[in-house]
């Protein structure tokens, strides 16, 4: 094959669509409140999500106070306790993590990273945020209605979720179900944007396989969310009908408080199927963006290309696909056909393969890297630790024979907090430290950041390692108090007290982080446009923070993938994606083949 001389622009394929026209508001309200700029929407999403997340954090403190020091707090009764458990779980999973990863990071990063001016449907994107805010307000309202919020457990299993006797069965449960349905409507509006923007608005040269893994993670997670959320939507509607109009979708014939109710024949297991058909992909809706972001944090700060980029992309896709065929592993104790359990155990173990590939690739990216142990990197490495630990206990629980005795014990609580709470939160923190300079033009304080990391990281272990052990001993989850249970030794109580103290300390340190966010906004060190010397497009913008439209007059043209770090022969140890091939990038000139 003969070598044909090209000029630099040859190396960049054409864009999917032409330039888009933006709506440029003139007023303050148009710019910052009813904004159609994805970056502003991202920050609105993030602040709302973190705000409601703080409520859930406080709820977890209260729960821990009760578990660590039972009978000491008169304001926590069994009903309150169940309400706290429920609201903590639902807020953290849906209203914090899903909203923050997709609504927050998705909105901020997708257009910047693929080289677009904005999302493809800015107006719908704005609506998405306001609908989300409405769902959050509905949820908050449930704290103030008669009977308080629902205490049905975050899985909202019928029949108990809507029967009298369950806390919040008058108003709380309805507000919860409506809030979820509204959230899903809002999310669908956002999800349309994330998916179509990745498909259609990439700049010249940004082929799918040149996208940073962050975008891949958010993209596939959005697809999962769009296909999985309808299950929750349908089940929420059906439960609302059961409750308000007396249908029997889920409600079996039942005697409640001595009275035969009008329900009959409904299937609670049907709800479980629908709920977990949403619920398991939900784990990956949170995890895949985390996987993507952490890949980029590690690659940037190890100054090495990500190891096995193609494998990483395929693993994200494979995990996404497999996540739809494992849902019933949450239902091993529902009395299902044993062959079903067998099938779902197998698929669950298979999903460990692409996940483990990703872990190996992260570690291999670190191997012989020129590692910069800054705060984002610390959090990224912290993620690898906590994710491996949470993932391993997941393999235990994926097996029917191990899962059945451990079901509904604190072991399960410890497992899913390691894998789904601590690990993604590590990434959220790392990502905020990483992209805060782009959002504000200032660095977060480094010493406070390191303090924040170490206390959070070690504190998380102090909380969850003993919790696994407590679970092994058979201590059930969701219990307000143990009472005199013969198989639970006295020492469990001291462990519980220790866990509570650790949880309070970790909680308080998050306030230090919030202080850092506010303080650095005014007093932080100016960051310049590319403080981490990263290659991806968001660091190559004309202004920091980027203005509406992101890239000044001309959209960037992409000539290379996102991981050209430490290229032999190049001037610097990173080559941004929009640098054309030339003398400075000698190592990467196209070779004859």
């Amino acid at each position, binding site marked *: 094959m003969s070598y044909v001389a090209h000029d630099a622009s*040859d*190396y960049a*394929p*054409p864009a999917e*669509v032409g330039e888009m026209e933006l709506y440029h508001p003139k007023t303050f309200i148009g710019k910052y409140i009813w904004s159609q700029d994805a970056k502003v929407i991202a920050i609105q999403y993030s602040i709302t999500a973190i705000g409601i997340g703080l409520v859930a954090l406080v709820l977890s403190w209260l729960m821990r106070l009760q578990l660590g020091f039972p009978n000491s707090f008169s304001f926590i009764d069994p009903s309150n306790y169940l309400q706290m458990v429920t609201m903590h779980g639902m807020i953290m999973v849906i209203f914090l993590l899903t909203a923050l990863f997709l609504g927050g990071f998705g909105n901020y990063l997708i257009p910047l990273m693929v080289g677009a001016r904005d999302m*493809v*449907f800015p107006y719908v994107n704005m609506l998405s945020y306001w609908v989300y805010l409405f769902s959050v307000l509905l949820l908050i309202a449930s704290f103030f209605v008669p009977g308080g919020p629902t205490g049905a457990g975050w899985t909202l299993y019928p029949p108990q979720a809507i029967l009298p006797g369950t806390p919040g069965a008058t108003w709380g449960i309805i507000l919860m179900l409506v809030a979820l349905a509204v959230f899903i409507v809002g999310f*669908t509006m956002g*999800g*349309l944007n994330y*998916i*179509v*923007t990745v*498909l*259609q*608005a990439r700049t010249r040269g940004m*082929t*799918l*396989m*040149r996208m940073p893994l962050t975008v891949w993670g958010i993209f596939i997670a959005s*697809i999962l969310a*769009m*296909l*999985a*959320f*309808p*299950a929750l*939507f*349908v089940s929420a*509607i*059906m439960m609302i*009908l059961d409750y308000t*109009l*007396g*249908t*029997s*979708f889920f409600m079996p014939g039942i005697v409640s408080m001595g009275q035969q109710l*009008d329900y*009959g*024949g*409904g*299937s609670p297991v*049907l709800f479980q*199927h*629908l709920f977990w058909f949403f619920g398991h992909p939900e784990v990956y809706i949170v995890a895949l963006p985390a996987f993507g972001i952490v890949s980029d944090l590690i690659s940037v700060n190890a100054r090495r*290309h990500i190891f096995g*980029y*193609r494998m990483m992309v*395929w693993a994200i*896709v494979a995990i996404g*696909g497999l996540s*739809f*065929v494992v849902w019933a592993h949450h239902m091993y104790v529902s009395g299902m*056909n044993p062959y079903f359990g067998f099938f779902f155990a197998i698929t669950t173990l298979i999903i460990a393969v692409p996940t483990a590939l990703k872990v190996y690739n992260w570690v291999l990216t670190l191997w012989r890297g020129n590692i910069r142990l800054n705060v984002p990197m610390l959090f990224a490495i912290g993620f690898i630790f906590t994710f491996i630990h949470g993932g391993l206990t997941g393999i235990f629980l994926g097996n029917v024979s191990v899962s059945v005795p451990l079901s509904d014990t604190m072991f399960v609580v410890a497992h899913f907090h390691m894998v789904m709470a601590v690990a993604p939160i590590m990434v959220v923190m790392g990502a905020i430290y990483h992209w805060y300079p782009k959002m504000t033009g200032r660095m977060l304080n480094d010493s406070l950041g390191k303090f924040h990391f170490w206390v959070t990281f070690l504190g998380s272990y102090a909380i969850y390692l003993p919790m696994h052990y407590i679970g092994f001993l058979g201590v059930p989850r969701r219990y307000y108090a143990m009472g005199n249970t013969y198989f639970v030794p006295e020492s469990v109580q001291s462990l519980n007290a220790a866990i509570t103290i650790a949880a309070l300390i970790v909680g308080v340190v998050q306030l230090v982080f919030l202080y850092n966010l506010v303080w650095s906004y005014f007093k932080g060190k100016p960051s310049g446009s590319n403080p981490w010397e990263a290659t991806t497009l968001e660091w190559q913008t004309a202004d920091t923070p980027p203005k509406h439209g992101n890239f000044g007059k001309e959209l960037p043209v992409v*000539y*290379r993938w996102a*991981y050209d770090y430490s290229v032999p022969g190049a001037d610097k140890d990173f080559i941004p994606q929009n640098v054309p*091939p030339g003398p400075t990038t000698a190592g990467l000139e*196209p*070779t004859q083949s």
Partner: protein
Amino acid sequence: MTTTALMFLAVITVIMAVVVWWLVRQTLDVKPWVEQRPLANDRGGDGFSLPPVKVGLGVFLAVATSLFVLSISAYLMRMEGADWRPLTQPMVLWFNTAMLVFGSVFFQRARNAAKSGQIDGVRLGLFAGGVCTLVFLAGQLLAWQQLNTAGHFLATNPANAFFYLLTALHGLHLLGGLWVWAKTAVKLQRGAAVHEVRLSVELCTVYWHFLLVVWLVLFGLLLFT
């Protein structure tokens, strides 16, 4: 329960196969670290340079498909309950089905007219399609009323509950479509040229065909179970 779940898994497998097939076509097998040659041509021409809003509609149809497939699986699973008393479908549903088919045909005509630039054809097709749809919705309400008068209330039996739920979900989707239809119609009334409404007409047509297929599946399901 088992057959339903197996069917369901089969549907998921098909969806996944489509996604993977598409990704493979998207040059997922290139080596981005060595490849700096132009990559676009590998995609086979301009096959994918659709307007974003078309792709957006496609994504939305995927979400709606998921919603209806899940509702239907719930229907099939709940059907196995001992208390399930199949509902005799009101005859008016046949008439409604015909109306929806006509609606789709008229939208298709509007679309063809839009392609060849005939404003009158667009106007006629759009108008007739919308009217058929409104008649369909009125007919659905009539079916509800007939069932109610016959004593088949929402909560009397799970089969009734599902009937109301599924028809309501389908009807709400049509209402959403009618909103876009109304906007397009207003534009036309104000004297918009064909090329200004071509995309909207096209999107409406695709959406109506989709909802017709959904209705045929739902109606078949209600008839045969």
